[in-house]
């Protein structure tokens, strides 16, 4: 990289030169960006009519300021962490799975079918396991066409995975208004009948702190993925493909097969998001399952720079925004503000890579090789 693009910084002999951003400077940029994004968001919210100073009290109380808030936060963070992991599994090999929303619906659909048609006296642990297995398969099947089309025909996976979301929303609408509709529940939004009681995921309470098994599953999945990508041969090959496809192919890695596997795994985790949310709090096949989770997962993965540990942190961060938005929607600010703020956060996060590309150097004209 030659350094004649950035502006010289003047006579002092210091100037900015372009270099490839290091991991540290990228990460630092992200952290600063996220803090900046939250400050901007808070300012924006405080300026909304009828919000003012009460905003911060409400935000504090409904998130980290009380045990109830923390409990709620873990519940909000659960699907976000999982969705972030699903997106990151694909983005590690350079692909974008935008279809987590669809996969979670199909995962939940498959799980619900198992719940409805399983024999009555089936033990809870067995039923939950079967439902989760069904969700993994359902999510993976929902991404088969985009995955195969990408692997063998290089069809843009962003568009194909996204398009299937709309099909999934319609699929959901068909089942909850048709074969599985529950008219007695219609006042609270369209949904199916509830799944059997023994399939509800348990919650552990310590005083007023309430932690669901679902949250622990999300942490477990993130931890497991971290270990796989850190310590196994598969993780190493993924890292190579993600860094440079051609070098990886030259090194003897079957890039096509690896990417196919990554997309299928990403879809399976997407399916898991659906069943976990359903069994944790919704307990029905319902339109409230998705709630933009798949899209927020993209933000979580992108801001976490595709790291699974980072997905936990960013999952919590986006959950704080969601919870704040929820608290504010009572005071009249619509929850679409949350989407707006998250978009700004993503934009600022992407912009944070810009200063990370420059380094301050002392000396004359020749630029060091990047």
């Amino acid at each position, binding site marked *: 990289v030659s350094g004649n693009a950035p502006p010289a910084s003047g006579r002092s002999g210091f100037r900015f030169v372009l270099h490839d951003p290091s991991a540290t400077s990228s990460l630092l940029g992200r952290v600063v960006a996220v803090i900046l994004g939250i400050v901007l968001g808070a300012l924006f919210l405080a300026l909304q009519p009828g919000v003012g100073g009460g905003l911060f009290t409400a935000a504090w109380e409904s998130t980290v300021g009380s045990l109830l808030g923390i409990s709620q936060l873990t519940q909000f963070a659960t699907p976000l962490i999982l969705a972030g992991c699903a997106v990151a599994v694909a983005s590690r090999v350079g692909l974008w799975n935008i279809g987590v929303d669809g996969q979670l619906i199909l995962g939940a659909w498959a799980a619900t079918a198992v719940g409805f048609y399983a024999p009555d006296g089936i033990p809870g642990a067995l039923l939950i396991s079967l439902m989760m297995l069904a969700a993994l398969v359902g999510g993976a099947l929902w991404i088969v066409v985009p995955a195969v*089309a990408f692997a063998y025909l*290089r069809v843009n996976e962003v*568009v194909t995975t996204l398009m299937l979301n*709309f099909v999934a929303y319609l*699929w959901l609408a068909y089942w909850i208004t048709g074969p599985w509709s529950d008219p007695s529940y219609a006042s609270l939004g369209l949904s199916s009948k509830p799944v059997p009681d023994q399939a509800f995921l348990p919650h552990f309470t310590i005083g007023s702190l309430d932690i669901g098994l679902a949250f622990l599953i999300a942490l477990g999945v993130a931890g497991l993925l971290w270990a796989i990508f850190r310590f196994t041969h598969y993780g190493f090959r993924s890292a190579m493909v993600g860094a440079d496809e051609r070098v990886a192919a030259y090194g003897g890695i079957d890039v096509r097969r690896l990417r196919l596997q990554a997309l299928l795994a990403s879809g399976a985790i997407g399916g898991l998001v659906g069943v976990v949310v359903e069994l944790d709090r919704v307990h029905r096949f319902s339109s409230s399952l998705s709630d933009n989770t798949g899209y927020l997962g993209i933000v979580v993965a*992108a801001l976490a720079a595709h790291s699974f540990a980072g997905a936990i942190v960013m999952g919590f961060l986006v959950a704080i925004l969601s919870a704040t938005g929820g608290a504010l929607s009572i005071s009249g600010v*619509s929850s679409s503000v949350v989407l707006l703020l*998250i*978009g700004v956060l993503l934009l600022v996060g*992407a912009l944070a890579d810009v200063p990370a590309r420059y380094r301050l150097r002392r000396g004359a004209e020749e630029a060091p090789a990047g």
Partner: protein
Amino acid sequence: MSSELFHVSLVGAVLVAVPLLYAALGELISERVGVMNIGIEGIMSVGAAAAFIAAIKTGSPALAMLTGTVVGGLFTLVFFAVPVILLRTSQILVGFAVWFIGLGASSQFGESYATQAIKTKIATLKIPLLADIPFVGEILFEQPWPFYVGVLVAVAVALLLTRTAHGLDLRGIGDDPAAAYASGVPVLRWQVLYVSLGGALMGLGGAVISVVITHHWQSGLIAGRGWIALALVIFVGWRPLGLLWATYLFGILLTLDTVGQAEDWAIPAAILAMPPYLATVAILIIRSRRGYRLAPAALGTSFLRGGR
């Protein structure tokens, strides 16, 4: 299906195709200068909301459409063109950001208008003589004026890209920006201008949806049409005139559920609404074998003056 209903639905499909045409033309211009803008859906939402609010405030559909266009263009300039072209951030990440910001901002600002409806319907423009041709006359020559403008814009873009020296420069930017720059073309200036103009067309596409088609606003109004437009550009091999028939095809698919309900078909409406999305996946797969060869060679890369 009765032949009368068949005819009516073919007439209606033209109107449904118009927003897709504008949005896809906007994306096509952007991609021909080498920039992939995946924020179409968000830009259309912003255009739709801005135009709708303008229509309620002024009562003039033409002014509303203009508002949607200008707001769409400015929104794209500030949130997409500048970060992506001048600051060289990731086109994919910023595209996502624009999508979210557009959806969020449009719902936020459009919400207080959600209960209102536009009273002034846009006038249908009947072309003399041509409109009297049996069957096709009503389909092609008795439509609201945004349809004719859309066809003209498509023709203009085609002429600009293939018949002018400036168009050659633009295609040069999309294929090899370094070579274009070396031959004296101001690469970044044209990229910023045409990506923003593309955004303006996307905003206009959104405006057509809220002002001409639905006459009311709700969040989620665009329902994936921006993404369909993105796929259509690939489908037609980056050729503007191909969009004329491709968007019409999708207009027909998008009206299937209405037709099905009117006809009491045994297929549920939810299932009948799936074909546009499934067809998008299908056309991308069909196109894949030779489609990508037609893509601008430098699509999706950012240009650094004097860089590698």
